[in-house]
């Protein structure tokens, strides 16, 4: 497994994603991008849908990418990488390429959970050999913090504002990791920016498999979550500790929870640190809503534990 030393050495040696981007100060996206790219030894080709990472890394005529990178539109990164990978296979067959090249997508939750879900599902079903990393910051950040299907219940978003009648987003978040797992692809995982070595290990394990691989990474957005700029790691860590965002893998259909918090940290601990949930602590309905959020976190955690029991890696 790649140690911090190896990751750091690779970062020194070959800087795949440079510092010349315009992501916000304190944004978690570059940490995830660098960790993923450093965990892969082979040459890579990267695709990104429209979103913060794309806009902040590719303003013509500059670029932050030192690896081949392609952006086409918002909803089609998985289809684009399908084409890149198919061309690779075709050129290999014709003897025009002999080296091993790996294919990676970095897509936001909007480009993955919502508008890009169909293209993603198609690419997974067809079995293209690529790694899809979802930089899940739980809203459409690039366009001004609109709600996505990854946005947690009650969070304030510009299209799900805290109003007199409706307090933020009414719906629960979609469980995309399980939807992806249902495609029966070889490798599926959840990770968080707070656990970078865990993420690097996951990437390395994933890349051992041929076919589609998917990692859903909780990627703090201080701007959209309304948290201090230096809190990205702490925020993601609390999400893991409260079991809101379990770190787990589904490898060839077998579940493994990578980290089980010893104590049950109530979800309030995470909610109360973020501006997007502030209203829950001011509104008289807040207590009841927090209880609902907690109940859903518990339900999903229990369900995951049971899946691990039934379809564990040893079982």
């Amino acid at each position, binding site marked *: 497994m790649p140690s911090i030393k190896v990751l750091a050495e690779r970062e020194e040696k070959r800087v795949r994603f440079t510092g010349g981007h315009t992501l916000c100060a304190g944004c978690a996206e570059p940490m995830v991008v660098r960790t993923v790219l450093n965990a892969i030894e082979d040459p890579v080709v990267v695709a990104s849908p429209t979103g913060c990472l794309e806009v902040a890394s590719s303003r*013509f005529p500059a670029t932050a990418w030192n690896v081949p990178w392609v952006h086409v539109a918002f909803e*089609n990164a998985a*289809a684009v990488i399908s*084409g890149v990978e198919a061309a690779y296979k075709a050129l290999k067959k014709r003897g025009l390429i002999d080296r091993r090249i790996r294919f990676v997508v970095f897509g936001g939750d909007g480009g993955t959970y919502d508008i890009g879900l169909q293209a993603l599902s198609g690419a997974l079903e067809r079995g293209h050999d690529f790694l899809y990393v979802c930089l899940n910051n739980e809203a459409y950040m690039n366009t001004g913090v609109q709600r996505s299907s990854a946005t947690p219940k009650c969070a304030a978003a510009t299209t799900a504002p805290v109003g007199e009648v409706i307090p933020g987003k009414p719906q629960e978040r979609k469980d995309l990791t399980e939807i992806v797992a249902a495609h029966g692809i070889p490798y599926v995982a959840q990770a968080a920016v707070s656990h970078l070595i865990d993420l690097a290990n996951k990437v390395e394990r994933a890349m051992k498999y041929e076919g589609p691989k998917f990692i859903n990474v909780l990627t703090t957005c201080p701007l959209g979550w309304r948290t201090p700029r230096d809190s990205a790691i702490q925020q993601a860590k609390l999400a893991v500790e409260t079991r809101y965002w379990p770190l787990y893998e589904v490898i060839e259909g077998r579940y493994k929870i990578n980290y089980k918090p010893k104590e049950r940290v109530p979800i309030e601990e995470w909610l109360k640190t973020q501006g997007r949930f502030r209203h829950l602590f001011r509104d008289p309905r807040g207590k009841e809503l927090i209880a609902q959020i907690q109940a859903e976190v518990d339900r999903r955690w229990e369900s995951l534990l049971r899946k691990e029991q039934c379809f564990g890696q040893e079982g």
Partner: protein
Amino acid sequence: MRKAITGHKAVAEAMRQVEPDVVAVYPITPQSEIAEYYADYVHNGLVRTELIPVESEHSAMSACIGAAAAGGRVMTATSSQGLALMVEVLYIAAGLRLPIVMALANRSLSAPINIHCDHSDAYLCRDSGAVQIFTESAQEAYDYTLMAQRIAEDMRVRLPVIVNLDGFTLTHTVQPVDLLEDEVAKKFIGEFKPVHPLLDVDHPVTWGPFAMPDYYFELKRAQQAGMEAVPEVFLEVQREFSRVSGRNYAGFFEAYKAEDAEYVIVVLGSTAGTAKVAVDEMRARGIKAGLLKPWLWRPFPAWEIAEALKNAKAVAVLDRAFSFGTMGALFEDVASALYPLEKRPVLVNYIYGLGGRDTTVPDLVRVFEELPKIEKAEWALRYIGLRE
């Protein structure tokens, strides 16, 4: 080698001879058989192409873009709603200067849903930046699919090229088609030269960056230059194709008995075949009728069309789609082309054949009969074969 085959098969055979690295395609009537024939070639080992059976046309074009940017030669085909779904990314293919060749089996757009031919799909992507070619027969569809590859890949152009063939009329009817020998076709097509391919990992490039007001305009201007280079390349490719095929392609349009014609119909696609019969009938009656059938529609060869029409008394431009709220798209092209002339023919616009409505020889004879009676150019639509 002459074969009796459908337009589908003719296009699929051209694709087999091109043998692109990647074909990403999604079925839709009346295009599906192209996808089916090609899948058959792949599954029987006739081609080494990677076939991507995508889950939508949006993904078909997206995968083509990925594959072309990666450094592969790619092709696809679609129709109607499929084109409508992919149009967002078709613009991007053009903006990224990717030489993707696509057969478009022309079919009407919903609503009401209808699977039959008109040109509303081609008109929908008129301003996409794709080169558009119209064909009259399965033979032309085959020939231009091969020529399109050369036009698209020419370094002066590097743009997607759409080869239009009328749904059902051309796609589903069996016609005699002369196919080139495989080696001759392959030699004509030549090797693909990728530009800054993604797969050249030692020379990383950023594809599809975002551009602000400080650069966007210049990048789009460069794209327009690619379009402006098409006419020259088109003629060169026609010349070479005529040489290897023994067929005679010269010019942006076919002018049928148009040289001395006083009354001319301008029409795209298979209806030109019907119009030729009508022209002959008029000529037999001693009326100087003629036909202009543009092969190249985008870019529009305005200067040459004006030259060809300048001596006519009256010209009927036939559009097989509405451009709602204004005149037909082809009519407006021709009207603009004629504007610089000092003496212009009377120009009228007919809408015809929507949703597969038959257009017959008597219909077009009637157009020729009407033309001499029209005294002034009109800015009002006339219709062929419509109940009102």
